[in-house]
C-alpha cells in the first residue's frame, strides 16, 4: 500500500506519552507526523468513532527465521504484527542458529528490510548460543544494532556470570530481557505446580522457580545498576517482588502476556497443547495478581511472547508438545475485552502498556504522535464485537487457544512510517 500525505480525521487520539486523550486530527506528510494544516494535498481518512494511538510495540516476538520457517517467517510474522496493530516488534534471538553474532543481527535486519512489514527491532543473546556459559560479543551486537539482550527461553543459572553480563550490558546501555526460571526447580515440568498438576499427575513448574530468579535479577540490578526487564511475569510472588523493587527506584520492569491475563492452569484438564507455555498458565490467584499489578502500575508492559509452532508439532501428547502460543493478532482485542471493557484499566492506561511502557524499557524516545516524529500509528475500533477466528490470521501458525473467544476491539489500520501496512476490512491487492 502506498505512502502519501493524509489526514486521519475525527478520531479519538490517545497519546499516553503526552497525556493526550481527545478528538483531533492527525496529519502525515512524507512519513512524518505533521500539523494537519501543513499537509499538502492530503487524502482525508475518516476515522471518527475510532481510536488513534502511537504504533503499538511488542517486546517479545519469536519470528522463527532462520531455523523454523515452517512455523513462521519474518514476512508472515511481521504481517501478523501489522494485523495486530503493532508497528514495531522485538525479535527474540532464539532462532537456529541463535542471534549471538553481528552477522546474525545483520541477516535479520536485511531480511526484515526486504520482507518485513513492520519495524523489526533485533535482540541479541546474552551468552554464546544461549548456553548460559560464556558472555556473547555484546559490544559487537550493540554496534550491529540490537536494542536489547536476552537468552529468552533460557535463563543464565550462574549468578556470577549473570552479574558480569548485567554489568557489561549496562556499560553499552542495553537492557536485559530475562526469562526468569531456575532450571533445577523447573526441570521436566510441563505445567504450573499446584492443585491441577497434582490432580492430573503432570510434572509441575513451581512458581518458586520464577520467583527465585526475579529476586536474583532484582538483587543484581541493585548491585550493578543494570536495567533488567522481567519477561512474561506469571506468578503473584514475582509481581510483589517487582512492586517492591520499583518502590525502591530500581531500573526493573515487568511484562504480562495476554494469555497469563486471560487463562489459568485449569484449562489443561482438556489436554489441549495450546494451553502449554512457559512460564505456564498459573492459578486464578496468580492471574488476579497480574491484573492488579497492571492496574497499580507495577507491570508496565503487555507483550505477546508470540511463539509459532506447526500444527504437527502441537498435535502430540501434552508432555511432548513444545511450549508456546501465538499472540500478535489477539493481544489487543483480548486485553481490550478483559482489562478495558471490564473496567479494570482506562483505555489510555492500556495503550500505555503497548507504547510508552515498552518504549521505556528500550529507551526509545519518540513513541508518540508529536509533530516531526515518524508516523507509526495504530487505528482501532474499541467496540467492534466478534469471535476470534484463527483461519483469518496472517501468521503462518495457528497455535492459539483463543479461537471462538468473544472479544470487543478490532484493528482497523496500521501505519508504519506513513505507509498503511494493514487495513480492515482487507482489500484484495
Amino acid at each position, binding site marked *: 500500500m502506498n505512502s502519501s500525505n493524509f489526514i486521519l480525521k475525527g478520531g479519538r487520539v490517545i497519546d499516553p506519552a503526552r497525556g493526550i486523550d481527545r478528538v483531533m486530527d492527525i496529519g502525515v506528510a512524507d512519513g512524518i507526523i505533521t500539523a494537519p494544516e501543513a499537509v499538502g494535498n492530503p487524502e482525508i481518512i475518516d476515522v471518527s468513532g475510532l481510536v488513534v494511538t502511537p504504533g503499538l510495540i511488542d517486546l517479545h516476538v519469536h519470528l522463527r527465521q532462520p531455523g523454523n520457517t515452517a512455523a513462521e517467517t519474518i514476512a508472515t510474522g511481521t504481517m501478523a504484527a501489522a494485523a495486530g496493530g503493532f508497528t514495531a516488534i522485538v525479535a527474540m534471538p532464539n532462532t537456529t542458529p541463535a542471534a549471538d553474532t553481528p552477522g546474525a543481527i545483520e541477516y535479520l535486519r536485511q531480511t526484515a528490510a526486504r520482507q518485513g512489514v513492520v519495524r523489526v527491532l533485533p535482540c541479541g543473546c546474552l551468552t554464546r548460543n544461549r548456553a548460559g556459559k560464556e558472555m556473547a560479543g555484546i559490544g559487537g551486537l550493540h554496534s550491529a544494532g540490537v536494542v536489547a539482550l536476552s537468552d529468552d527461553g533460557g535463563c543464565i543459572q550462574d549468578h556470577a556470570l549473570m552479574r558480569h553480563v548485567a554489568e557489561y550490558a549496562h556499560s553499552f546501555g542495553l537492557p536485559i530481557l530475562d526469562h526468569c526460571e531456575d532450571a533445577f526447580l523447573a526441570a521436566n515440568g510441563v505445567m504450573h505446580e499446584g492443585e491441577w498438576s497434582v490432580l492430573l*499427575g503432570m510434572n509441575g513448574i513451581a512458581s518458586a522457580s520464577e520467583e527465585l530468579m526475579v529476586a536474583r535479577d532484582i538483587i543484581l540490578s541493585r548491585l550493578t545498576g543494570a536495567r533488567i526487564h522481567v519477561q512474561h511475569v506469571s506468578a503473584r510472588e514475582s509481581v510483589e517482588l517487582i512492586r517492591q523493587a520499583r518502590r525502591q527506584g530500581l531500573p526493573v520492569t515487568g511484562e504480562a502476556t495476554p494469555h497469563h491475563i486471560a487463562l489459568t492452569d485449569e484449562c489443561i484438564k482438556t489436554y489441549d497443547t495450546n494451553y502449554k507455555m512457559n512460564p505456564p498458565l498459573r492459578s486464578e490467584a496468580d492471574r488476579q495478581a497480574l491484573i492488579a499489578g497492571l492496574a497499580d502500575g507495577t507491570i508496565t508492559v503487555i507483550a505477546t511472547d508470540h511463539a509459532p509452532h506447526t500444527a504437527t508439532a502441537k498435535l502430540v*501428547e*501434552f508432555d511432548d508438545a513444545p511450549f508456546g502460543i501465538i499472540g500478535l493478532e489477539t493481544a489487543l482485542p483480548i486485553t481490550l475485552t478483559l482489562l478495558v471493557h471490564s473496567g479494570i484499566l482506562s483505555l489510555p492506561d492500556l495503550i500505555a502498556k503497548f507504547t510508552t511502557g515498552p518504549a521505556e524499557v528500550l529507551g526509545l524516545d519518540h513513541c508518540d504522535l508529536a509533530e516531526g516524529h515518524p508516523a507509526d500509528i495504530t487505528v482501532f475500533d474499541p467496540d467492534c464485537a466478534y469471535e476470534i477466528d484463527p483461519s483469518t490470521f496472517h501468521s503462518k501458525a495457528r497455535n492459539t487457544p483463543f479461537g471462538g473467544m468473544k472479544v470487543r476491539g478490532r484493528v482497523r489500520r496500521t501505519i508504519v512510517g506513513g505507509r498503511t501496512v494493514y487495513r480492515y476490512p482487507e482489500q484484495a491487492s
Partner: protein
Amino acid sequence: MEFRWHRKDLLSLYDLSREEIEYILDTAEEFKKVSERNVKKVPALRGKTVVNFFVEPSTRTRISFELAEQRLSADIINVAVDASSLKKGETLLDTVRNIEARQVDLLVMRHRATGAQNFIAQNVRCGVINAGDGAHSHPTQALLDIFTIRQRKGRVAGLNVTIVGDILHSRVARSNIWGLLKLGARVTLAGPATLVPREFEKIGVRVCHNLRDALRAADVVNLLRIQHERQTAGFFPSVNEYARFFGLNQETFQYLRPDALVMHPGPINRDVELDSAVADGPNSVILEQVTNGLAVRMAVLFLVAGCGNK
C-alpha cells in the same frame, strides 16, 4: 430404573459418576462367576477386534487385559512399543489412526504421558480403554482395588482407606482417590512430604506424614510400589530409611486394626514398602486383587464395547 452404560471410552474415574462405578462393579461380579466355571469363556465380544497398544512396558496389566479379552472371545492384536512405528518417527496419532483404519473396535492403551489416551480418544472413533497414562490415571487398577474392598468388607462407603507411598508419581493412587471418594470412603494419603503434596487436601482427602497416625483407623491400607529412581532424584535419602519410616513392617503393622485389609497393586518390593510376612499374612488380599482384575477388565471391555446396551 435400569442404568444404561453410554461411554465409548474409559479414561479416568474422575469422569465417572457413583452409579457408573457401581454398575461396572456389579457387572464384574457376574463376570467373576465366569472365571470360576469349568468353561471359562463367553461369546460376549465375538466378532469384536481389540488392540492392546502398550507404549510403555507392562506385563501384569497387559496379561490381565489379554486374558479378559480371550475369555470374552474377542479377536486380539498386541502392539508393543518396540515393534511399533513410533520408533520410526511416526506421530502417536498417526500410529493409532493406522491401527484404527483396520476396523478396530477397541483400543486398550498404556502410555507414559499424562492425558495421551484423552488426546487419542478425542481424535478416533473406536473405544479407548486407559490401561495407565503417566502419573494420571489407571482406572481398571482402581476398580479392581475397590471391587476387592467391596467384596471383602461388604461396602465402600464410610470405610477408612489409607494409601501409602509415592502418591505424587502414582496413577494408581489418583484413580483410587477419585473412585473411593465417589463411593463415600474416607481417604488418607501417607508418606513423606516430598511424595505426598498437601494440594491433595483441596479435594477432601487427609494428608498424613506419619505412618502410624495414618494406619490407626484404617480399614484398608494400600501400599504403592516405591521406585528406586526416586531416591536418586532426591525424594528420600535411601531405600532403607524409606522402609523404616514409611514401609508397612512388623513394627508399624501393630498399629493396624486386626481386620484391616493389606493391598498392593504389585509388583512388590518385598521388605521395602511391605514386609514379606505381612505380604503373605492373613490380612493380605494381594493375590485376590489380581484375580479380581480379570473380572473387572472383562466388565469394562464388555461395557465399553457397547454390548451392554444390546
